[in-house]
C-alpha cells in the first residue's frame, strides 16, 4: 500500500462546536488559532490586551522607544495550520511492508524504497516492545540507541529532554550526543578565551538594546543575518529594533559572503570575504589597530592576558608574515583599503559586534577551524574595551528589557524528568554514548570510534577534553542494533546526507523506528513509523522562545522577545487520524513494556502541566484554572527595573570571567593545559585555511564554495516540503518550474555566465559526496566564486538509489554536499557551513 493514499482524507469533525480561540506555541511565535467545527480555520499573531502587562520603554534623547503591543510571528508559524492538514501526515502506525520482525532477513537494503502498510497501535507497540526485549536480552540495553533531533515541535512536557529522555532513561540506552550544531566555534574556541561554558561559549546578553540605542555608533554584523534567523525563536520582534537603529543614524556593516536578508535592507556596507577566510579578515583588522595604535591599551593591560602572543602573530614576529590588509586581501578578496577603512571606523566609533545569530553562532563558526574565527571575534572586542558603554557583543536581536528573575523553565530543562516535578527522576544507567556525527560511521563501519567532549559540554570547559570511545569495551559497550529517532528530520539538516541514507540502510541496523507526524526525512527509511500529533493537537505548557530557563544552554533566551509570554498550550483539535501526542506515544510504549507507572507516575498530561506550573513562578501570578482558560500570561518588566548591561561588571573590575585567570585570555590557559601542541587549535588563534575552502587542494576539482546558512522561511526543515505548499510560493524559498518547486541556489552572474547558466535554469551542484539539483537564481548577492543555498530542505528525493552520491537529488538536500568531518582534530564540532562544489546546467528531467 502506498502511504500517500493512507494519509489523505479529512480531519475528524467534532459536531456542534462553535468557533473558539485557542492558544499554542511554535518556534516562530505565539499561535492564536481559531477553531470552528473541530477544524483550525485561522492562525494569527497575538495582540496584547489592556489586561496584559505594559510594555517596556527606553528613552533616548527626546525619543521614547516602545515595542508594538503584540508577539510577532513568522510566516511559517502563521501558516502552521497548513502543516497540520498536510498531505503527507502520517495518520496511523505504519510498518514497512517487507519488514518482518520474526524473520532474520530484514531487507534493510529496501529502506528508503519500500512501501508501508497500516497497522494498529496495539500491533505497533507490541512490535516495539518485542524488539526492545529481544535486543536487550541478546545484546543488552546498550545495543539500543535513541536519538533526539536538535529540535522538535514546541512544548515542554512533550519535548525531547522530557518524555523521550525519561522513557529511554527508565529502560537504559546508548545516548546519541548532540554536537554544538549552530554555535560550534563558540564552544570550541571562544570558550577558551572568555569562559561561558554554561552557555555554549556564547556571551551574556542583558540590557544591550538599551546600551546600543544610547551608546553605540556602529553595528558590525559578522556572519549574522538577524532578519533570517530571528534570534532563533523570537520571530520578528527585532525588525522594529533595526528600524530604530537606522532612525538614530547608527551605521550598520554586514560581513557575509552572501548579501544576506539583513544586509539588503539595513546595511550601509556589505563586506564579502571568500567563505572560510573570515579569520584572515579579523587578523588584518587587529593589524591595523596595533600598527596605528588605535586599540585600548589600558584595557588590554588590565583585563586580558597573553596579548603579546597575539600581537606577535598579527605583526608577523611569530611566523614572518605580518597580517596586513594586503595579506588579507589576497586571501579574502576584500580590498585592503576597505579592511583599513573598516578597522579605522570600528576603532573610532563605539561599536557593537554581532558575530552570528545571538551575538555568537554564524556560519563562520560552523566551518573548518571555526573556533579560530570565534576566538578572534572576542579578541577584537577585547582590543576595543569590551563592556565599555556601547562596545559589546550584540546582534540587534537580544537583551531587551525583561524580568529575567521570573522563573519559568525552558525546553532543555527536562520537563518530566526534573527533581521536584517528577517524584522519581531516572538517570540513564548505560555508560556508552555515541556522538551524533559518528552515527553513520557506527552503522557503516567496524571502526572503533573516538572523540573528545560530552555533547554540549555544559558542565565545564574541561569536559571538552574528556575522551570517549564507541563501542565501549565489554561489558559496558556493544554496537548498536536498534535506533529510535525522535523529533525533526535529519534529512536534510545533517551534513553528508547521502551517508546518513546509506547508514539507515545498513544491515547492522536491525530495527529502526521513527516517531514523526510527517512522511519525510528518515521516516521514509524506518521499519516502523509512529504517527505523532502536531503541537496544535496536544496540550502542553511552555514559554515562547525559552530554550533554557534560568539555566541550560541559552539562559533567558526569551529576553530577545519584546514581551515574555508563557503559554498554556491548548489542544486546538483532537489528534488527526490515530496520531498521538509524544507524551501519549511513550505512554503507549511504556504500557507495552510494563513501565507505565514509572513513566507517568499515574499522572495524565494535565497533571504534569500542573506540576510544572506549581514549580514555576506562574503559581504566584495566576490561578491554574484561569491560566488554562486564558491561555497565556505576559511577564511584566518591573517599573523600577535597572538596566545592567552584560560585561559592565567585568569592565569595572577587570576580572570575574570563567577562565583560569578570570580575564580574557588571548593565550588560552585551558588549551595550554590540555592541548598545548595542537597545530589546528594553537594557544593563540590563527587563520588556518579551510580544508574545504578556496585554498584547499580540492578546489582544483571543485572550484566554487557553496555556503549553506540557516533557512529563512522555515525553521530548519520543519515547515518545508509537502508540509506547507504556501511557503513553496515564496520565491526565496522555492521556485516553481515544470511541475516542481525547486530549491534555489544563488550564483553570481560571472560564475553563471562561465557555465552557460541563466536565471531560472535547473542546475546540478555536485562533488564527491552528492549531486543536488537546484534552480539557479543569478544575482550579485552571491559573491563571485561562491554559491548560496539554504541548509534545510525537508525533501530528500534521490533519482536513483538512495545514498548514492551520483543519484541526482531533486528536493534540494544541499547537505548531501557538506562534510561530516570534525572542524579540527581535537574539536568534534561539525563544519557544514561551506563546501567545495562545481555547478553545471542540469539536462535531466
Amino acid at each position, binding site marked *: 500500500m502506498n502511504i500517500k493514499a493512507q494519509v489523505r482524507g479529512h480531519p475528524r469533525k467534532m459536531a456542534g462546536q462553535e468557533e473558539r480561540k485557542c492558544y499554542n506555541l511554535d518556534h516562530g511565535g505565539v499561535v492564536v488559532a481559531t477553531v470552528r467545527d473541530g477544524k483550525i*480555520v*485561522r*492562525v*494569527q*499573531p497575538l*495582540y496584547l490586551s489592556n489586561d496584559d502587562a505594559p510594555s517596556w520603554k527606553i528613552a533616548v534623547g527626546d525619543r521614547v522607544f516602545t515595542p*508594538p503591543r503584540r508577539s*510577532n*510571528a*513568522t*510566516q*511559517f508559524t*502563521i*501558516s502552521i*495550520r*497548513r502543516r497540520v*492538514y498536510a498531505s503527507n501526515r502520517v495518520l496511523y502506525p505504519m510498518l514497512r511492508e517487507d519488514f518482518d520482525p520474526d524473520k532474520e532477513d530484514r531487507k534493510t537494503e529496501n529502506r528508503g524504497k519500500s512501501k508501508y502498510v497500516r497497522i494498529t497501535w496495539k500491533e505497533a507497540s507490541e512490535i516495539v516492545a518485542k524488539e526492545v526485549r529481544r535486543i536487550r536480552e541478546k545484546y543488552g540495553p546498550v545495543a539500543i540507541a535513541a536519538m533526539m533531533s536538535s529540535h522538535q515541535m514546541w512544548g515542554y512536557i512533550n519535548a525531547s529532554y522530557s518524555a523521550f529522555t525519561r522513557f529511554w532513561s527508565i529502560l537504559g540506552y546508548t545516548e546519541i550526543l548532540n554536537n554544538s550544531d549552530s554555535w560550534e566555534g563558540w564552544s570550541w574556541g571562544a570558550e577558551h578565551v572568555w569562559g561561558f561554558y554554561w552557555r555554549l561559549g556564547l556571551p551574556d546578553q542583558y540590557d544591550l538594546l538599551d546600551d546600543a540605542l544610547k551608546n553605540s555608533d556602529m553595528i558590525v554584523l559578522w556572519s549574522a543575518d538577524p*532578519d533570517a534567523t530571528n534570534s532563533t525563536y523570537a*520571530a*520578528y*520582534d527585532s*525588525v*522594529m529594533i533595526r*528600524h530604530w537603529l537606522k532612525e538614530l543614524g547608527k*551605521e550598520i556593516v*554586514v560581513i557575509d559572503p552572501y*548579501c544576506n*536578508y539583513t*544586509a*539588503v*535592507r539595513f*546595511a*550601509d*556596507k*556589505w563586506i*564579502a570575504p571568500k567563505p572560510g577566510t573570515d579569520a584572515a579578515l579579523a587578523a588584518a583588522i587587529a593589524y591595523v589597530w596595533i600598527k596605528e595604535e588605535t586599540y585600548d591599551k589600558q584595557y588590554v593591560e588590565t583585563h586580558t592576558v597573553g596579548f603579546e602572543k597575539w600581537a606577535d602573530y598579527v605583526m608577523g614576529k611569530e611566523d614572518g608574515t605580518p597580517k596586513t590588509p594586503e595579506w588579507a586581501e589576497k586571501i579574502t578578496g576584500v580590498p585592503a*583599503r*576597505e579592511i*583599513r*577603512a*573598516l578597522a*579605522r*571606523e570600528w576603532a573610532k566609533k563605539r561599536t557593537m559586534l554581532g558575530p552570528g545569530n545571538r551575538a555568537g553562532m554564524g556560519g563562520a563558526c560552523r566551518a573548518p577551524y571555526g573556533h579560530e574565527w570565534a576566538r578572534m571575534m572576542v579578541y577584537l572586542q577585547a582590543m576595543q574595551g569590551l563592556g565599555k558603554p556601547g562596545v559589546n557583543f550584540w546582534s540587534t536581536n537580544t537583551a531587551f528589557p525583561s524580568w529575567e528573575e521570573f522563573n519559568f523553565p525552558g525546553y532543555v530543562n527536562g520537563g518530566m524528568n526534573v527533581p521536584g516535578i517528577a517524584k522519581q527522576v531516572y538517570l540513564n544507567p548505560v555508560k556508552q554514548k555515541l556522538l551524533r556525527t559518528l552515527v553513520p560511521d557506527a552503522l557503516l563501519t567496524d571502526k572503533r570510534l573516538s572523540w573528545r567532549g560530552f555533547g554540549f559540554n555544559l558542565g565545564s570547559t574541561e569536559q571538552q577534553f574528556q575522551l570517549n570511545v564507541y563501542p565501549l569495551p565489554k561489558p559496558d559497550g556493544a554496537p548498536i542494533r536498534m535506533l529510535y529517532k525522535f523529533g525533526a528530520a535529519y534529512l536534510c539538516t545533517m551534513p553528508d546526507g547521502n551517508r546518513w541514507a546509506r547508514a539507515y540502510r545498513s544491515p547492522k541496523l536491525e530495527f529502526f523506528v521513527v516517531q514523526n507526524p510527517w512522511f519525510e526525512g528518515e521516516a521514509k527509511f524506518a521499519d516502523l513509523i509512529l504517527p505523532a500529533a502536531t503541537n496544535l493537537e496536544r496540550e502542553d505548557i511552555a514559554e515562547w522562545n525559552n530554550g533554557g530557563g534560568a539555566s541550560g544552554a541559552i539562559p533567558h533566551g526569551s529576553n530577545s522577545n519584546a514581551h515574555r509570554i508563557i503559554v498554556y498550550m491548548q489542544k486546538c483539535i483532537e489528534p488527526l487520524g490515530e496520531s498521538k501526542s509524544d507524551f501519549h506515544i511513550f505512554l503507549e510504549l511504556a504500557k507495552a513494556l510494563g513501565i507505565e507507572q514509572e513513566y507517568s507516575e499515574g499522572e495524565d498530561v494535565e497533571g504534569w502541566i500542573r506540576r510544572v506550573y506549581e514549580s514555576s513562578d506562574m503559581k504566584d501570578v495566576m490561578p491554574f484554572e484561569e491560566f488554562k482558560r486564558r491561555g497565556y500570561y505576559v511577564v511584566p518588566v518591573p517599573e523600577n527595573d535597572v538596566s545592567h548591561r552584560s560585561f559592565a561588571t567585568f569592565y569595572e573590575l577587570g576580572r570575574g570571567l570563567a577562565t583560569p585567570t578570570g580575564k580574557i585570555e588571548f593565550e588560552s590557559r585551558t588549551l595550554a593545559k590540555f592541548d598545548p601542541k595542537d597545530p589546528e587549535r594553537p594557544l593563540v588563534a590563527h587563520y588556518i585555511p579551510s580544508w574545504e575552502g578556496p585554498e584547499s587542494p580540492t578546489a582544483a576539482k571543485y572550484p566554487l564554495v557553496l555556503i549553506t546558512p540557516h533557512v529563512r*522561511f522555515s525553521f530548519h526543515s520543519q515547515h518545508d516540503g509537502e508540509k506547507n*505548499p*504556501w*511557503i*513553496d*510560493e*515564496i520565491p*526565496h524559498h522555492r521556485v*516553481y518550474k515544470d511541475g516542481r518547486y525547486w530549491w534555489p541556489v544563488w550564483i553570481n552572474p560571472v560564475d553563471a555566465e562561465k557555465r552557460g547558466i541563466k536565471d531560472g535554469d535547473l542546475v546540478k551542484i555536485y562533488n564527491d559526496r552528492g549531486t543536488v539539483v537546484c534552480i539557479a537564481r543569478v*544575482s*550579485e*548577492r552571491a*559573491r563571485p566564486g561562491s554559491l548560496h543555498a539554504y541548509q534545510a530542505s525537508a525533501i530528500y528525493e534521490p533519482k536513483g538509489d538512495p545514498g548514492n552520491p551520483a543519484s541526482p537529488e531533486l528536493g534540494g538536500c544541499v547537505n548531501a554536499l557538506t562534510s561530516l568531518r570534525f572542524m579540527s582534530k581535537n574539536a568534534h564540532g561539525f563544519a557544514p557551513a561551506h563546501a567545495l562544489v562545481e555547478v553545471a546546467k542540469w539536462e535531466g528531467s
Partner: protein
Amino acid sequence: MTRYGMVIDVSKCVGCYNCFIACKDEFWGNDYPPYSKAQPDHGQYWIKIAEKERNFPQIVVRVDYVPMPCMQCKDPPCAKAAKDGAVYVRDDGIVIIDPEKSKGQKQIVDACPYGAIYWNEELQIPQKCTFCAHLLDQGWKKPRCAEACPADAIIFGNLDDTRSQVRRLWKSAEVLSPEQAKGDLLSPPGGDDHGSSVRYIGLPKPMVGGSVIFGDTGECAEGVAVTVMDGGNALASAKTNAFGDFLIEGLELNRKYVVRFEHPDYASKELEVTVSGDINLGEVKLERR
C-alpha cells in the same frame, strides 16, 4: 462615512512574506460568502511581492520589496469588463468580485491593469484581495496582511477619519503605475487613473552610486562631496562615507545628469550619466591637486 485606504511603506518592508502568508491562511479552505470563495494552495497572490535588486555589490545589494494587493479602484476597469454586475464597488471603496455571478468571466482577470486578479481554474472564477471585507464588516480594524506585518509597513484605516494615520499619509503617498505593478519597479509612479485605494511611500527610484578612491594613496575617499547636477541645478548631494561610498536615489529614467565629485585636496571630477536604471559608477578615482 467610511472609505478604506491602505498605505504601504516600502522603506519599512523587510520582505518576510508574512502578509502573503497571512492572506493564504485567511482564505485557504475558507469560503466567505458572499465575499469570496477559498483561495487555492498555489498560483494566486492576492498580495504579491515584487522586488528590485539594486546592484551596487561593492557597497551593498539593496533589495526593495513592493507588496501589491488589489488597488480597490474607485473606477475599476474590472467592473467595466464584468457582466451581470459581477464586480461592484462598495460604499467604503472595496471592490468585490461576486463569486457566483463572476463564474466563467475570465475577461475580468484580463481587465486589471495591475495584474491583481487571478483565475481559479477549478472553480472557473476570478479571485482577488478583498481587503478582508468579511472581517472589517465584523468590526475588525485591519485586514490580515496588515495585522501580520512585523514592521508596520502596511497602514490601514478610514480615509474619511481625520484622525487616522492612513489619511495623514495619504496626500504625500504615491500611486503605483501599471508598469510598476507588472515588474518594472523603477518606472515612474502612476497618475491615479482609476482612483486607487492603495498608495505607497518609498517606491524605488533610480539610484546612482559609487566608491570613491584617492588616486595617490589608494585609500577609501571619505568626505567627498558628490552632487548630482540636473542641467545647472543641484538635484541631490551626499558626502562619501568612511568606505568612500555614496548612494543617491531619486533620478528620473531616460534623463542625463552630471555627477560632480569635490574635495578640498583633490581635483574635482564630473561624470555624465544617462539613466536607464540604477547606475553603479564602480570605483571613481580622484587625483590630488
